[in-house]
């Protein structure tokens, strides 16, 4: 199956700052991929490069097109919500539908209206009178009405309350994810989207530190819950991360821990948050904590 996104040696630099450093990954059809990283890790830069709004070095193919050269053609075939997306406050929702219909060949105004009716927003409401959560829902309804194979969402729920976030993800799952289309979504709310994801891309200071499916993550990484008295022995096995759990302590290993260490505790399912912390903590912090 041809990947929707293929990146090979992708790099991007803003002056002296290396925003993306030699990234290589693929996104297959029908996947929900989480793009995780701290602020400034390069998530937005990567997404802008993927939709042709930022020039990057290396090989990049999105839906078979080269984003830098075919930006307009590419944007015709995917749905994209940028990180600072604010819909224009002067517009009514119905006007936005008219305008997107006039500019996007794969946009269905009828479907957008149907999606909007599922929300508490009226078609004649002005954007400036909507709450932030409502605006994001309108935006999602607009992009979900695009007949595309790929949706790219850059921190779409940033600043929303929990109810608005829930409504957003429900709309996304119900109306867009059909097993064939893919979504690439960046967010800081890792716990909330963990259950939605099929794959994870993890960025740390511009470098890709993880590109795996959740099944492979479960196979590869092992969390070991243990008694505090076994802490020294577990630490000696050089886990990626040691952390506290409600019942005691735990350690996260890349691969199976040595059998004598594994025997000191019980295997737990590693959470994405713990893995994220383990893989994206800065080296100096790791050094200070003796990891």
């Amino acid at each position: 199956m041809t990947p929707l996104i293929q990146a090979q040696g992708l790099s991007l630099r803003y002056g002296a700052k290396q925003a993306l450093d030699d990234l290589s990954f693929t996104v297959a059809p029908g996947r929900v991929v989480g793009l995780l990283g701290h602020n400034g890790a390069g998530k937005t830069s990567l997404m802008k490069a993927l939709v042709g709004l930022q020039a990057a070095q290396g090989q990049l193919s999105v839906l078979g097109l080269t984003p830098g050269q075919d930006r307009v053609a590419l944007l015709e075939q995917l749905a994209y919500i940028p990180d600072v997306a604010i819909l224009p406050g002067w517009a009514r929702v119905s006007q936005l539908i008219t305008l997107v219909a006039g500019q996007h060949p794969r946009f269905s105004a009828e479907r957008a209206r149907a999606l909007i009716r599922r929300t508490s927003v009226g078609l004649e409401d002005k954007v400036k009178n909507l709450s932030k959560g409502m605006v994001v829902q309108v935006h999602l309804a607009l992009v979900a009405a695009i007949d595309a194979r790929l949706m790219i969402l850059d921190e779409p729920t940033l600043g929303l309350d929990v109810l608005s976030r829930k409504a957003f993800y429900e709309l996304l799952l119900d109306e867009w994810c059909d097993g064939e289309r893919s979504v690439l979504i960046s967010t800081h709310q890792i716990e909330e989207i963990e259950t939605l994801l099929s794959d994870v891309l993890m960025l740390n200071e511009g470098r890709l530190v993880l590109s795996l499916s959740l099944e492979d993550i479960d196979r590869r990484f092992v969390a070991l819950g243990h008694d505090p008295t076994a802490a020294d022995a577990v630490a000696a096995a050089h886990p990626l991360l040691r952390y506290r759990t409600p019942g005691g302590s735990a350690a996260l290993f890349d691969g199976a821990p040595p059998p004598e260490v594994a025997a000191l505790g019980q295997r737990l399912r590693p959470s994405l948050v713990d893995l994220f912390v383990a893989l994206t903590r800065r080296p100096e912090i790791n050094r200070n904590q003796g990891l």
Partner: protein
Amino acid sequence: MDRIARFRSLLLREWMQHRTGWLVLMVLPSLLMALLGLFDGQGVDLQVGGSQVQVDQISSQPMVLQSLGWTVATTGLALLLVLLTVLGQLPGLARRDRQDRSIEFWRSLPTSHVQAVGATVLMHLLLLPALALTAALLGAQLVTLLSTVVHQGPLAWLQQPWSLLLGSLLVAVARVWLGLLMAVLWLSPLLLLTMAASAWLQRWALPVVTAIGVLGAYWLDPRLPQPLLGPALRRIGTEALYALIAPDLFDGPRHLGQLDVAETLARLPLAMLQDGARVVASAATPAFMAALLGGALGFALLVLRRQRSD
């Protein structure tokens, strides 16, 4: 979806966003003139250069002159308001989508940067002003109707030489559109470079543009073997003004004034056509090409700014 349909949608966006202000601008001149027409009950004594000049009420003039007078006055007022509006809006226009933070939304749509900037420029510099001036030309006819009906009765209005008047009106509309187009092209270096400066430099744009103009004209020009900026600005201003206000017709009425009203009106379309041809001829000069190049540079800077909008 073809490019034209997409461009139309971009123009529609401009209309949706700014229609209230422009609708006011389209109606206001005619409305003011209509009020003036209603109260046109007596003449006015003016003191001009120490001597007393009596201006009769407009409704005492021959019908055709009333019609021409209201047309010129309404269109002139509309032109003034359009100029003030366009000049007032231009700097903000370049930063509009960044200021309301919607730029990323617009950039996420499959539209080329050239089309997006082009639609904004075309709509605000040409189409909306053309609509406002056309509305004024047509509105002036309503003003004439109102004024005539109030002061002389409807019969007087119906007795006008309609074939001549309508012919003149059609040519006047064409002349106004042509004049606007040529004026915008002549002024394009100033307009688009000011917009570009506003897009790139934001609040520093106006001081920087003013400083460049002043330094160029008063410091640089005297040091050059041949002054450059001052004469260029004067040429641009003169050509744009002449394109807009039909200077040949100002020379003409003195000549035309010696003819009777019917003859004046009969000659007006031809005079406007000749004047229009002269305005077009002014484009066949190196100065006009230089103006277009300056405008193109400003446009390119605007596109580049939208491309790099972060």
